Each structure stands twice: as structure tokens, then as C-alpha cells.
């Protein structure tokens, strides 16, 4: 039987809205697939696009970024600054060949536990359909240093 591909999703979420929303999903015992690893940041404005690149470098097949709805930012304008950056970065990645099936954005408030679950499941399905991020994995492989536990780092 062919093994089902389980994508690795890295989700950068803001402390005040989405993280709390995801927490609510948990306390409400909503069922959710387990592929997303959450990274909590103070605000979506804190997410430098280099984080997204780093996630791919570390084996992510897809990235989800989520924060407070416009107008609800704990720091007033962090998400507005972030949104402008995303428009540019998303277009850049698209032009380079990393399309929107690997990079997702959402607004999820502290009370939207259900929305969070739906979005995560949707992202997982989309990335699963797209398949593993082979191109990045190939680049990662090239620089892997073979490690021998007994001998420490060994040359190939």
C-alpha cells in the first residue's frame, strides 16, 4: 500500500489573536489534523519574510501565517504593516516559483477556534495535494553533514 504523504506545516501565529484562537480550538476539543507546528510570535508585524524561508529550509512543505483581523491588532498597526509586506513577498515567491499552494495567510481572532481548525485542515489538504517540497529538500540534502554519533562529525 502506498504511504500517504504527511506534509509538514509551519504556522507563524500572533500571540494575541490566532494563538489564543488555536488554544480555544483545543479547549473546545475540536478535532484537527496534527501536521501544523505552531510558532508563536508577538505580532504578525514581527514576521520577517526570512522566517518563511527558514521554515522551508528546515523542511516545511507549507507555511501558514495568521494574526488578528485588521483593526484588532494589539499594537494597532502591526498587521497592516505585515499585510503590505506579504503582498510584495507573495508576489516575489510566486515569480520565483513558490506558488500560493505553499504559502497561506489568514486572520483568525481569539474567538474563532472553529475557523482556525477549518483553515489548518484546508492548508494541510492543499499542501498534501501539492506534494512534498522536493526542490527545497534537494537543496537541504546537498549541505547535510554526515554525523557519526560515536565519532562526532565525520567527513564523508
Amino acid at each position, binding site marked *: 500500500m502506498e504511504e500517504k504523504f504527511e506534509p509538514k506545516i509551519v504556522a507563524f501565529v500572533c500571540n494575541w489573536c490566532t494563538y489564543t484562537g488555536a488554544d480555544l480550538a483545543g479547549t473546545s476539543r475540536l478535532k484537527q489534523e496534527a501536521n501544523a507546528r505552531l510558532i508563536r510570535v508577538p505580532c504578525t508585524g514581527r514576521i520577517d519574510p526570512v522566517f518563511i524561508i*527558514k521554515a522551508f529550509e528546515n523542511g516545511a512543505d507549507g507555511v501558514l501565517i495568521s494574526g488578528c483581523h485588521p*483593526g484588532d491588532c494589539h499594537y494597532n498597526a502591526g498587521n497592516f504593516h505585515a*499585510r503590505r509586506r506579504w503582498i510584495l*513577498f507573495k508576489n516575489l515567491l510566486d515569480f*520565483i516559483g*513558490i506558488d500560493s499552494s505553499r504559502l497561506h495567510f489568514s486572520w483568525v481572532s481569539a474567538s474563532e477556534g472553529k475557523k482556525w481548525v477549518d*483553515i489548518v485542515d484546508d492548508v494541510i489538504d492543499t499542501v498534501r495535494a501539492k506534494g512534498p517540497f522536493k526542490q527545497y529538500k534537494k537543496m537541504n540534502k546537498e549541505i547535510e553533514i554526515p554525523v557519526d554519533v560515536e565519532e562526532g562529525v565525520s567527513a564523508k
Partner: protein
Amino acid sequence: MNELKQICKEALTEKKARFIIAYREDKNKKTKPFIARTPEDAEQIIFNHQAVNNLAVYFPRFKNSGEGKIGIVVKSCDLKAVTALIQENQIKRDDLFIIGVNCSGVVRDTTMEFSNDNTQIKCKYCQAKTPPYYDELAEESKEFEMPDDDQAELMARIEKMSSDERLEFWSAEFEKCIKCYACRQVCPMCYCEKCIVEKSEPQWIDTSSTARGNFSWNIIRAFHMAGRCIGCHECERACPMDIPLTLLTRKMGMVASSEFGYRHGMSLTEPALIGTYSTSDKEDFIK
């Protein structure tokens, strides 16, 4: 024509500028950047089709370097870098003595004579041969034939590709990178005192020139230029591996203009695109 020399000489004699960043012919008969500090130095100043360098790149090193204005010889395209640096609060208009030159196109390959085939693509979509503002203006503008915009064709070809094909195209290009950072050094908009590639705690970008490190570096550099690149094409000229770098930055400029109606380096008073926001920025891609 001596007019440019005359203007520079006068400016230095009358202390309108404490020095002038300009071009001269070096001992190998190449047109190279040069800093004229005395009226005698000004004798060496020239301007021609080989004056490719964007001299605005020298500003950051003169930050807080003394009293008096900094003089600079600029083509219309280079003036955009000056404007952009003013917009980004890196330099003040009042601290500058701008000597604009009417430009008649510059070469793509500095080892060859100026000709229709040897003209930079940026000259194709140059909006003004005369700089929009200046303190003094020199040189006569001559008509020249516009080069073909072969970059636009390549851009259209890439846009038609599937995303996997695009990724393949760019991976192959970035793989050539040797991480010399010439693209950064030559760029007037890359003035960070510590570039992200030099930050090592944590190490954001692999420093070795592996496929992965090159990929991250080129993406991040292009992103840092998004909506900030003024299109001087210096990065691509400097790149020893002939990576089509301006294709990325030009594309980002097109995005800035289509999404935000913004072009960097065009207005002294408009706030920079990044660092500001609008509550009505598009968000149809956000779930």
C-alpha cells in the same frame, strides 16, 4: 565640452560643495568614479557614454563626515537613487549640491564602444534624459536609438511558465551565485551597516555558496529591494556570474506600481512604500 568641468571647478572654488563625486578617466583610459576635492581636481572630471556607475552608492560613507555640502554628478536615473535616499531619511536635500547631466545613454558592456547594440536596457524605459531637479545642469542631450527591451520578453516568458518551471529557472540561475555580494556593494539602496547575511546569531542565511544559501540570499536581497529598487541596473552589471538580478527587482517594481500605485525615488515628499501602510491595502489572498 568643458561646461561640466567649469561648473565643478566653480562649485569647488566658491565652496558650494566641499567635494564632488564625479567621473574621470583612469590611467587605463576607463571612465571611473572619482572624488574631486580641489578646483585642480575638477580639471579631470568627464562625462560620457561609459559613465555607468551610480555614484549615489558613495553617500553612506560620507554620513556625518563634516560641514558643507556634498557635490555629486548625476544622470537622470541616478537621481532617482538620490531621491529615494532622501525619502528614506538617509541624506538631506540641503546637504547636497546636485550637478545634473543630460544623458544620452550609457553602455551595457564597458569594454566596447557605445552603439545601438551596446546600450543599457534601462535607457529604453528612461523617462527623462534631463534630471527632474538639480542645482546646476551640464552637458547637451543627444538623441540616441533606444535599445530593444529584451528583458521584457524574458519577463513575459517566465510569467507564462508553470511555477515548477519558474523554480527550476531561478534555481539554475541562483546556483551560479558565488556569494561575492558585489550586487549589494554596488547598490545605492543597500546601505545597511550590517547586512542580514552578516548576522550570525542566529545565522539567517547560509554563508557558503551552496544552492540553498544562494537561493535564500537572492530571495531576501530581492525582497529587501521590493518597492525600493530604483532600477539603475548596477547589481546586474556588477554580478560576475551574469545572474539576471534586475529581472527580479524590476518585477517587484511592477508589483509596487500595480498594487500600490507607487514608484520609489520619484517624489521628495511622498513617504516610502515600506514603513507605511494603508487600511485599504488589498487582502483577497488572506483567508
